[in-house]
């Protein structure tokens, strides 16, 4: 185990100063997610334009450094992407957190990949995986606009 890998500078920095925090104006998709066992919760808002591009994305919520950093980095990377690109990134990220050693998609620039890979430290902390993935699952739900709440209890 390695706390240094979990709490890398970039995580701590995003955790402390999360980007895209708040409710974006004129959002047209949103979803809530929570982790009932620990009380973490997140609300993801996005504005998908007619070309199905994510014009804006933001989140509200409270949680640990990992979950705040993950939501912060996620919103940063997803902003400006098309919905298909977004889906590919999400899948890539979740796959990496689950089992893959690396990110595969080539939509992301190298330094964006590096940012995301910083979250891979949670792999060694199974109970913290949920912290890193909650906002991502919630984003999926927002994009599908199921209107159903996401919970990471599985």
């Amino acid at each position: 185990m390695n706390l240094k890998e979990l709490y890398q500078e970039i995580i701590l920095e995003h955790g402390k100063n999360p980007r895209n925090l708040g409710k974006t104006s004129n959002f047209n998709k949103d979803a809530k997610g929570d982790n009932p066992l620990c009380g973490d919760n997140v609300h993801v808002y996005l504005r998908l334009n007619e070309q199905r591009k994510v014009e804006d994305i933001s989140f509200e919520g409270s949680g640990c450094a990992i979950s705040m950093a993950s939501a912060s980095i996620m919103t940063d990377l997803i902003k400006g992407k098309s919905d298909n690109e977004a889906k590919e990134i999400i899948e890539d990220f979740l796959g990496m957190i689950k089992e893959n050693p690396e990110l595969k998609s080539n939509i992301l620039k190298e330094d964006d990949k590096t940012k995301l890979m910083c979250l891979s430290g949670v792999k060694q902390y199974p109970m913290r995986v949920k912290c890193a993935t909650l906002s991502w699952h919630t984003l999926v739900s927002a994009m599908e606009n199921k209107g159903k709440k996401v919970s990471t209890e599985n």
Partner: protein
Amino acid sequence: MNINNIKKEFPIFDEKIQNNDLVYLDSANSSQKPKVVLDRINDFYSKQFSNVGRSIHYLAVAATNLYENTRISVQKYINAKDKNEIVFTKGATEALNLVANTLGQVILEPNDEILITELEHHSNYVPWHFLRKSKKVKIKFAEINEDGDIPLENIEKEITNKTKVIAITHLSNVTGAVLPIKEITQLAHSKGIVVVVDGCQGGPHLKLDMQDLDCDFYAISCHKMYGPTGLGVLYGKKKWLEELPPYQGGGGMINEVKKDRISYGELPNKYEAGTMATAQVIAFDQSIKFLESIGIENIIKHEKELIEYGQEILKKNNSVKLIGNPKERGGVLSFTVEGVHPHDIATILDETGVAIRAGHHCCQILHDKLGISASARASLGVYNTKDDLDKLNDGINNCKKIFGL
């Protein structure tokens, strides 16, 4: 693992019981436990203990994983489609209460009918009786035939357009009859009827395949399956477990709790309120592994041989009357001895280390029907041998001698 040599896996058979070797013929009541299960309990408590699902420290994470592993083992063992169809309860009785209570809240209206059978254990009657009181539903009893069997026709003829639930045992703990659950389910589903199976005796003695049986609920008693006491499993089809309300409320089963409202967690948490039987669940994984290491086919074959042998010697013993003569009999030989009351039989057998059960075995309806108030029951586990049955027979002869018969 070789079934012919299996007694040695069970520490209790190393003990002398009142100076006798133990001849344990009370497994339908509760089975003995193999060493692997006891070791797991001890190891878990002494090296790894933590509560599950709540904390995120190392021990808690490890315990949670072990706990969820058992869920997956059970899922595979009973061939359920989804691990979230496995709910841990304190026993089969609680599992049946859970189903009756929650189905009662959702699908039952006054005058609806619940169809059970004359073979049912009180645990598969009393929970439905509660609904007779609270929901004004009716309970009907499918009759046994003269062999102590419930043929499909006897179910079919009790079904009306008011029948909403059929609650039925997989294997009778008195006559040993194995009921045609798959056919009953087919029939029931063709009429939109929910099927709840009391699998307490099915668990240890039959191959369990939920997707094949296709029943809606199946209740299992872990302590009868070489597992710890204080644990049961409710299998429920996902669509039902998602639709029905929670049964007990408390920690771990919630999603969001506010002063004016509460939302409930998803499966399987929704039905697992409060601290569960953590150590028991984790140890039950070893019971499943133990069963798998022998192979249920081998267990069935072994018990079938014993049942046939037992029937043979008891039929030869005049004054012994076997209860039931079902087409397919699993694990249980109940009988009476002319002129000797079952309690006296049990006491006399006990004197030589032969442990059987005497009484109504929580099946008063059946005993009423048979016109007796009690019976003697020898029930089998993987560890029994023909020799055990010979000792049973010797003991019965001893009863006859004492009673001057």
